[in-house]
């Protein structure tokens, strides 16, 4: 095909789209809504994948209360830490008190993690970058919180602000960035402070879980078994699992939902295909005489097919871009995250999802335009003029 000519004739489909404004707007609207849905679902799937695959270490165990699934219900005596420390293979034990603002499904969950200063120094600070405030400020105040950047952005928090959630009032001592979605969506506070705040009738000395670091990754299973056996006949039996599988298990229902949602995402792509194909099929049907006139003027069948494909591509790409960018912008502004058993799952505005959405729109636009394009290219000119 003559390239300059192929580029020149693109003006024709552009004007067709511009001057059939209502038809174009309706098609674009439908495509945009479908791609908005696809982008949000794909972003949620990405958030689940990140939470379950990246945000966990190979040398850590989480000790939780047996048969409990919500941080409110998992209550373990803090003194268990001393017994756990004595189990062979355990390098360190950190008691953690977790308070979430909402134990049900919510897109704005705030997680307080009560930890000891040693844990902050050993586990948190080496992997994060302080954006505002300082760890020293956190150490100097009992009611201080180190807040992850996603949580800070969602709640519009800055260092020095005071905020209250789940009955806990804290002062923001610092804001940090982290690669770990669990950390960047949490507020780390002093353990005794959180225990005191969450006492509600006498639960001082109670924690939600222990994070246990083992000295050898190959000992994860044996240490976990030893911990659970140690407390099996206690009044607070435990359930210990590698951090990875703990997060994966916590998010199991969400993963299942994400699996179902991926079908919805596929349906959204099918909707884009149907909308583009329908818009073009109707347009080409209404343009039989126009197409015949183009061929009389010397437009070849392949040139007519190219213009039809370009029209489909433009519809899908513009509609897809509107939907994907709207979803991306919405996620970027709202930064929604939800919690499953204390594990935070972000719905991330990802550039890769945005690009994948645009690419999918382009491919679908071309595919949906192929049949109308071939039909237009094979139009019998004389017959079309007679029939038109």
């Amino acid at each position: 095909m003559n390239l300059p000519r192929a580029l020149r004739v693109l003006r024709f489909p552009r004007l067709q789209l511009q001057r059939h404004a209502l038809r174009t707007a309706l098609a674009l609207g439908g495509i945009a809504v479908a791609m908005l849905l696809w982008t949000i679902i794909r972003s949620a799937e990405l958030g689940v994948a990140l939470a379950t695959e990246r945000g966990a270490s190979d040398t850590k165990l989480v000790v939780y209360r047996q048969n409990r699934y919500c941080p409110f219900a998992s209550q373990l005596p803090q003194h268990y830490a001393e017994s756990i420390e004595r189990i062979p293979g355990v390098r360190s034990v950190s008691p953690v008190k977790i308070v979430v603002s909402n134990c049900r499904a919510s897109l704005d969950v705030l997680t307080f993690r009560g930890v000891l200063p040693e844990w902050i120094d050993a586990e948190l600070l080496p992997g994060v970058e302080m954006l505002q405030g300082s760890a020293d400020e956190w150490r100097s105040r009992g009611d201080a919180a180190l807040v992850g950047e996603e949580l800070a952005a969602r709640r519009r928090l800055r260092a020095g602000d005071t905020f209250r959630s789940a009955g806990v009032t804290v002062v923001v001592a610092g804001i940090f960035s982290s690669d770990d979605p669990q950390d960047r969506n949490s507020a780390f506070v002093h353990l005794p402070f959180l225990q005191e705040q969450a006492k509600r009738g006498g639960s001082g000395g109670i924690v939600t879980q222990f994070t246990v670091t083992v000295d050898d990754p190959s000992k994860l299973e044996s240490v976990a078994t030893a911990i659970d056996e140690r407390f099996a006949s206690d009044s607070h039996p435990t359930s210990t699992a590698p951090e990875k599988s703990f997060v994966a298990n916590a998010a199991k229902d969400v993963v299942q939902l994400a699996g179902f949602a991926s079908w919805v995402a596929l349906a959204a792509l099918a909707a884009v295909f149907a909308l583009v194909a329908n818009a073009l099929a109707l347009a080409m049907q209404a343009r039989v005489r126009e197409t015949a006139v183009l061929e009389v003027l010397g437009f070849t069948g392949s040139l007519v097919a190219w213009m039809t494909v370009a029209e489909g591509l433009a519809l899908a790409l513009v509609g897809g871009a509107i939907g994907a960018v709207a979803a991306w912008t919405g996620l970027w502004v709202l930064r929604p995250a939800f919690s499953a058993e204390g594990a935070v799952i972000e719905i991330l505005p990802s550039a890769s999802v945005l690009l994948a959405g645009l690419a999918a729109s382009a491919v679908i636009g071309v595919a949906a335009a192929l049949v109308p394009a071939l039909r237009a290219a094979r139009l019998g000119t004389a017959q079309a003029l007679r029939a038109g």
Partner: protein
Amino acid sequence: MPLVEARGLTRTYRKGEQEIRPLDGLDLDIDAGRFVALMGPSGSGKSTLLNLLAGIDRPTAGSLVVDGVDLAALSRRELAEWRSRKVSIVFQLYNLVPVLTAYENVELPLLLHDLPRRERHARVVRALERAHIAHRHDHMPRQLSGGEEQRVAIARAIVTEPALLLADEPTGDLDRSSAESILDLLSSLHRDEGRTIVMVTHDPRAAERAQATLHLEKGRVAETIARTGAKESSRAPANTEAHA
């Protein structure tokens, strides 16, 4: 050598069990620079001949050479390329593209030509002026009268400087006054610019504008009337090779 040379030109269609033969061994020569009218009853083969001359239909048998090119030998793609350079048609119902302005409609065939933008613009303006419709260049077809639409269609037909200008009942959908002005325009294109025009018409007054009228019957030229001046004519015998 004539611009159009048809020998034994035959076109048949099948309609169910029945074979229809709108052109049946037609012989015809048309010299360059002539203005020829085609007349005849419905089904006599006028529009079929026009479609063959335009390269949008192919003969079943016989040969058709236009401007030295045997149209039957061209592929579909070559025929489209040939159409874009050598022939233009003016239709009875104008066939302008409704979403394009008058200017854009006239520019449309030039998008197939490798011309600089400035040259393309100059040609479009010249064609619109030649068709006396430049003042309506930014109007959409729905904003134009029938006569104005036909002027735009004529501008679109002449913008590529075709060797052969075909007109399929160009005044058939117009009132008397508009029809006269369209015929004046076609006459002046022939007289002043030496364009070769073949016009199908049912209107004897329109046919009188042409230098020659070919009467078709049953797919052949039944009669040729050549005019040297207004109303002056000489008749050729039927069923012989027509030369216009």
